[in-house]
């Protein structure tokens, strides 16, 4: 795959279709891969990488990159194409300046999950028939491939590319995913249990803003949390109210626009399952206002920008589910 991508990139650079390529650059270890921009064939040969750890969604970089001179080639996984479509819909990117090559997606692996097994000193990871052979300075270790799959891929919603100029490999289908299972499980808990669950999770928050900054839907020129006049500035005391406040508002601001790419949970240094907040909104929107997948197209109105005269009343919240 990596080979095919590098060749495609070289070809498009050579024939002048694009003048830059956004992809992933290899790091010090097998898993610490950085999104990067490549301008020459030499750079591509030296550093371009695509493997089980290239989980980062590069579509947000296109907000800035697509405003520059010339076309940029972006390799997008299916989930990333939803993000790009959503950005196109919101006029945040100049789609004409982007040449999208769709590539098959995951499942991607999460190095944290491997480390959580106590495996350390990792010098190499190989996938052999869905068993990970992990070379470490303490000797070789193995673990099942599926146990290391990142959360965002474990509940993959779609293998279909919703926008592309070209595909490498075959396009997939929208999947029957289990992504709302955990949301449902929480909904079926008592209010006290839910409160305890979220307090335990959100109290871990260190307010690093990684979830906001990585989010392809968070593209405001000036975020409300960066505005000292708003009274909700990001540098707040770490107390329970501010933690709740930040995460409710963050999720609310992307409600109806979140494509469920899972980046927020992936980057959280404290492993807070932030995607559950987003999925709760998605699930509510689906059940109350009809199925809606943000980023599926570039024309429909977002659910919070629309209404019907016979929408349910807010009291529905009081009438359903567990107290």
């Amino acid at each position, binding site marked *: 795959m990596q080979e095919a991508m590098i060749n495609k990139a070289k070809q498009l650079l050579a024939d002048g279709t694009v003048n830059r390529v956004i992809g992933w650059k290899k*790091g*010090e*270890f097998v*898993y*610490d*891969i*950085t*999104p*990067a*921009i490549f301008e020459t064939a030499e750079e591509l040969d030296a550093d371009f990488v695509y493997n089980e750890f290239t989980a*980062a969604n590069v579509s*947000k*970089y296109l907000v800035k990159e697509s405003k520059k001179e010339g076309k940029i080639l972006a390799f997008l996984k299916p989930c990333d194409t939803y993000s790009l479509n959503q950005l196109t819909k919101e006029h945040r990117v100049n789609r004409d300046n982007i040449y999208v090559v769709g590539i098959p997606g995951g499942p991607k692996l999460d*190095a*944290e999950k491997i*480390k*959580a*097994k*106590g495996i*350390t*000193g*990792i*010098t190499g990871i190989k996938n052999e028939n869905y068993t990970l052979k992990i070379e*470490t*300075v*303490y000797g070789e270790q193995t673990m099942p491939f599926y146990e290391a799959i990142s959360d965002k891929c474990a509940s993959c919603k779609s293998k279909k590319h919703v926008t592309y100029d070209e595909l490498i490999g075959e396009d997939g289908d929208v999947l029957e995913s289990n992504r709302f299972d955990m949301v449902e499980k929480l909904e079926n808990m008592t209010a006290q249990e839910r409160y305890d669950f979220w307090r335990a999770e959100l109290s871990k928050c*260190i*307010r*690093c*803003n*990684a979830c*906001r*900054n*990585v989010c392809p839907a968070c593209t405001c020129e000036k975020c409300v949390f*960066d505005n*000292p006049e708003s009274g909700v*500035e*990001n*540098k*707040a*005391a*770490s*107390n329970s109210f501010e933690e709740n406040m930040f995460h409710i508002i963050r999720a609310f601001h992307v409600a109806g626009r979140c494509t469920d790419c899972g980046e927020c949970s*992936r*980057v959280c*240094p*404290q*492993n807070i399952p932030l995607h559950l907040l987003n999925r709760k909104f998605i699930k509510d929107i689906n059940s109350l206002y009809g199925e809606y997948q943000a980023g599926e197209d570039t024309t429909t109105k977002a659910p919070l920008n629309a209404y019907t005269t016979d929408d349910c009343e807010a009291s529905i919240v009081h009438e359903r589910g567990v107290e």
Partner: protein
Amino acid sequence: MLRIAIDKIDSLFDAIAEKQTLYIPVDREDGAAEYKKYESGMKMSNSLNTLRSAKDFFFPQTENLVEFKMEGKQIEVKDIREESEDFVIFGVRACDARSFSILDKVYLVDPVDSFYKNRRDHGVVVSMACTRPAETCFCSAFGIDPTAPEGDVSCWNDGSYIYFEANTEKGKAFVDSISSLLEDGDASSLENVKAETKRILSLLPLSNLSTDSFGGDKLNEYFNSEKWAELSESCIGCGTCTFVCPTCQCYDIKDFNTGNGIKRFRCWDSCMYSDFTKMAHGNPRISQLERFRQRFMHKLVYFPANNNGEFGCVGCGRCLSKCPISMNIVKVMKALEVK
């Protein structure tokens, strides 16, 4: 050397916790370790390091500085500082133990930060030698020996016993206070443990990382490097690296109106944030390039320039595993390095 059998460690923790607050690293459900206030029955984590650094104990994420009551044109200042209670942090790794001396160089130099000093005076740091360093470790590059950690008391674990050695007056007093639970024993087995750890250290992928080409005298050379643009291009400007870092010490001071007074508090701040240097008339660091550069220049050049060549990094590796886009100080050093 004084030691205690590992299976009796709980009784030691209980004894310490009876007299003062004790913090030990414990495993969380998600596999990460964090410091928790010890309560009977807690098990100490075996993992190499805690997710958050130990700087929280002396430099917490937020703390109240002072309170004001406003009435008409009058302001009343209320000094709300209180004497900190005595506490013990157990199981600090060599990197974090060194980070305290780096923080000291900021907060204990004139004018002394009394909030920090208060906690520093009342905290006993019990460090624990490493036996299973990870691939992200590079403390050796900064002259830290993970088999001989600093701290008020150093500990070693040979698999069956934990050995204690006091390094400071405060440490001696601490060891004396628990001596009834300790026994004197042969420590020769530690030599093998240390030798094995050192062998592992030499195998680590970052074992050859060198700081030779960095230091206070390289200011303009690196500041004007062309590499910054490429290095910073994918930085998303979050504060993860700064907040997990044991030596990042910048803070912001803010006021909170509670409705019945003003609380002035300080909280961690990050040079990666766009408003870090923003003033009424503009911002001297206009793009992520300048902010990104500031962080690494501070650790590798500015800090050594002001502190006799000591670097502002301890090689704990937290930023290596936590950065959302996996950009980190090692990559920066390798890219900038003048071969």
